[in-house]
């Protein structure tokens, strides 16, 4: 099982959990499994072409998946997947 770190704006959909564990052999498979487990997340992550939205970054361990093989990047059970969306807040 890989660990997926859920950013604060999406935690409403994971019942407040900051990380969840799921199985999947690629980043795409993991994110699809995430949407199946917590419906509504997919809509927040993917655009109409099924690509991760341009204001969201997905990391496999420390590396941006876009510098690896994108959604096809293989994932091992010990890997950590981080979803990092753009945030604008400065505490104003």
């Amino acid at each position, binding site marked *: 099982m890989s660990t997926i770190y859920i950013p604060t704006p999406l935690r409403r959909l994971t019942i407040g959990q900051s990380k969840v564990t799921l199985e999947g052999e690629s980043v795409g498979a993991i994110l699809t499994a995430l949407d199946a487990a917590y419906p509504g997340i997919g809509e927040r992550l993917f655009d109409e072409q099924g690509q991760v939205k*341009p204001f969201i970054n997905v990391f496999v361990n420390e590396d941006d998946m876009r510098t690896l093989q994108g959604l096809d990047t293989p994932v091992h059970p010990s890997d950590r997947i981080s979803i*990092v969306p753009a945030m604008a807040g400065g*505490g104003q």
Partner: protein
Amino acid sequence: MTRLTRDQLLNHIRASVPEVTPAQVAEWRQQGREPVVIDIRERDEWIQGHVPDAWHLSRSFLELQIEQVEPDRDAEIVLYCAGGVRSLLAARNLQEMGYEQVYSMIGGFGGWKSAGLEVNVPRFLSPMQRERYDRHIILPGVGEAGQIALLDSKVLLIGAGGLGSPAALYLAAAGVGTIGIIDFDKVDRTNLQRQILHGEATIGQAKVESARQRINDLNPEIKVIGHDCPLTSANALDILRGYDVVLNGSDNFPTRYLVNDACHLLRIPLVDASIFMFEGQVTVYQRRDRARGVEGGPCYRCLYPDPPPPGEVPSCAEAGVFGVLPGIIGSIQAVEAIKLILGLGAPLVGRMLLYDAQDQSFRTLSIRRNPACPLCGDHPTLTELIDYEQFCGMPAHE
């Protein structure tokens, strides 16, 4: 034993120690031949002015400390004093230690000045400054020179809100000599849960004025430049130009893209951070500059090529923000700004630090420049500021 007069001794030494004129030393330097130049006068002479890029090792410590400056016995060393006599005597001692190429500069610093060559008059901290910054001065990596660099530095804060508050206080306490603040908001009671620059007494005042009062109470020698206006494409380059570092604490996407682009165009490192509820992100965007040995990293656009559509990401005003969170993240921004000014440690360039207050966890992710980035990529198409409200489809200011 031979009995020598002063002049006989000097003539005797001159037979074995080569002498150079100040003009020769200057010419060597111009030619790229860089001898180690050491000023052997006393500290009170040195602080009146000295040869640029010279080391200071007073004659009484020369033999004891020379190896810390130049252990290589084959290195070219030029010693100078005030008039050229003490350096001649000192050079002989270095020869005895095995230094093969030691020169004494004829006429010393007086000769250097008479030749009309450039003189460096070092700055020193006042007794009160030495007291205030004592814990910095004794710290390896800062020291007196580092503290002077901080006092000479200029940092601009985008926003005097949650992130800007702790950053401004720590930068002021650290002695960053000029702190610019751009914010057109007024202090509101809802700010005080986290914006520790302001207080009950300054509710209703312009944030830049409230900030100025608090900063100058903490450290009166800090020059605060307030910009009580919105940051726009029309004024951004003029406002940002001349700052050494910019700290981003803005609260909206149009301003974030604007600040990113302006900093890139002006080659100013940007310490960027954002917060949401219990979570914060912080990183440093710094443009590659090989001439200055800066490797550089990605920019904001490499990470986030497009902003989210309006309404997709709630603001702090809508979702709330944990009051201490900007204290942590804004303080990390201050750390990064000071490190950049001092050239200390490893800046958060190419790395993004994530902090989660609920899990009490810090994580670091690796971020890379996108070769296709329209701003900092291999074939940039963005070469000037644009209309950021149009680009983001949302207003930057209410």
